[in-house]
């Protein structure tokens, strides 16, 4: 049973979980720290920070993919796994569900969030548009990690047209 009171959520066994805003603060500091470490941001330097962030998200996603699914084997096809991402994973991490999921039925999925919690504090519009991608790297890794635990190899990229709305594009890699 979940109750929302003053931003607190109860975990699945009724354990009180920490306030959601703690993760947002931690994430902001992570991005600031990993960005600031490159005094000479050549083209290779910046990409390395992004891949470090993405790698962190990947490991977290792997653990989430193990812990979150319910008791039954619920993923008969890829679409079920993507729906799980949009509903359960998003709700667990960001306390809301994904706003829209579109697919071309050939392995490409576009997940759209109209008010992404990690961007919502920054701006509402076109200000800070260049800074926005580095705040999405961790989440891309998270999606990729969760899918990898469920047995789906994928490539996840993110794009921002106007804050705080963003799109995550998931391309399934079929080898």
């Amino acid at each position: 049973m979940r109750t929302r009171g003053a931003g607190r959520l109860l975990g699945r066994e009724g354990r009180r979980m920490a306030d959601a805003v703690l993760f947002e603060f931690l994430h902001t500091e992570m991005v600031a720290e990993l960005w600031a470490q490159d005094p000479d941001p050549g083209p290779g330097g910046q990409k390395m920070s992004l891949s470090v962030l993405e790698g962190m998200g990947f490991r977290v996603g792997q653990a989430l993919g193990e812990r979150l699914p319910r008791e039954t084997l619920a993923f008969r096809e890829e679409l079920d796994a993507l729906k799980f991402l949009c509903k359960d994973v998003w709700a667990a991490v960001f306390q809301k569900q994904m706003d829209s999921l579109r697919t071309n039925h050939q392995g490409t999925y576009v997940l759209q969030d109209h008010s992404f919690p990690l961007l919502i504090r920054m701006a509402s519009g076109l200000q800070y548009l260049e800074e926005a991608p580095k705040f999405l790297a961790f989440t891309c890794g998270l999606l990729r990690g969760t899918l990898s635990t469920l047995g789906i190899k994928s490539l996840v990229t993110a794009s921002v047209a106007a804050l705080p709305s963003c799109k995550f594009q998931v391309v399934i890699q079929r080898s």
Partner: protein
Amino acid sequence: MAVCVAVIAKENYPLYIRSVPTENELKFHYMVHTSLDVVDEKISAMGKALVDQRELYLGLLYPTEDYKVYPHTWQWLRVWGFPAVAGLCTVMPCLGLSQSPRIKSVFPNQLCSYGYVTNSKVKFVMVVDSSNTALRDNEIRSMFRKLHNSYTDVMCNPFYNPGDRIQSRAFDGMVTSMMIQARQPRGSCVSWLSLGIAEKVWVGALATHMGCLGLKSTGKEGLKGPLSSQWPRRRD
């Protein structure tokens, strides 16, 4: 209780396999390996079922009739008398032979293997000795649930790389608690009350004798002090 517990990765290699220390542990490894075929069959059969009916617990995979040899030490002692054995037990450790003389008797041993698969296609296989106690389905399910929860904790451990062998002591402790009852040797325990008076005297003398021997001998491992070679261990 459980006689062998194995955690198999998605790619069908073992992440963790542990069995009760017996003479022929390889037999359990083979049994787990052959159970994987049955697991794969069940998973593919389940793929066609409705979503609601798909469970993580796969149930009994297959039972085997396995003939196991038992040490029947007490029976031998009654036949040949205690003094001879006392002498032999003194001499044999000095010669480096650790096995006490025994005759073997044959009992059928019912080993059953049960399976469980997670959403990440990690399989748990448990081999259970059901000749003693008939374990109910619910008990097996609860054992698997405990295993699943512990495995999830291992995955969430930042010092664990997914795909490595599981070395977590917490996981080991949980598996030990599931296997602990199986470590008591069956067939070689005889109630004290069933022995005659002369036998009790001999047993007492033998026990004292063996106790004195034990204090004098130091095995290969010796005493484990704080600077033993196992420190520092990996944190878990």
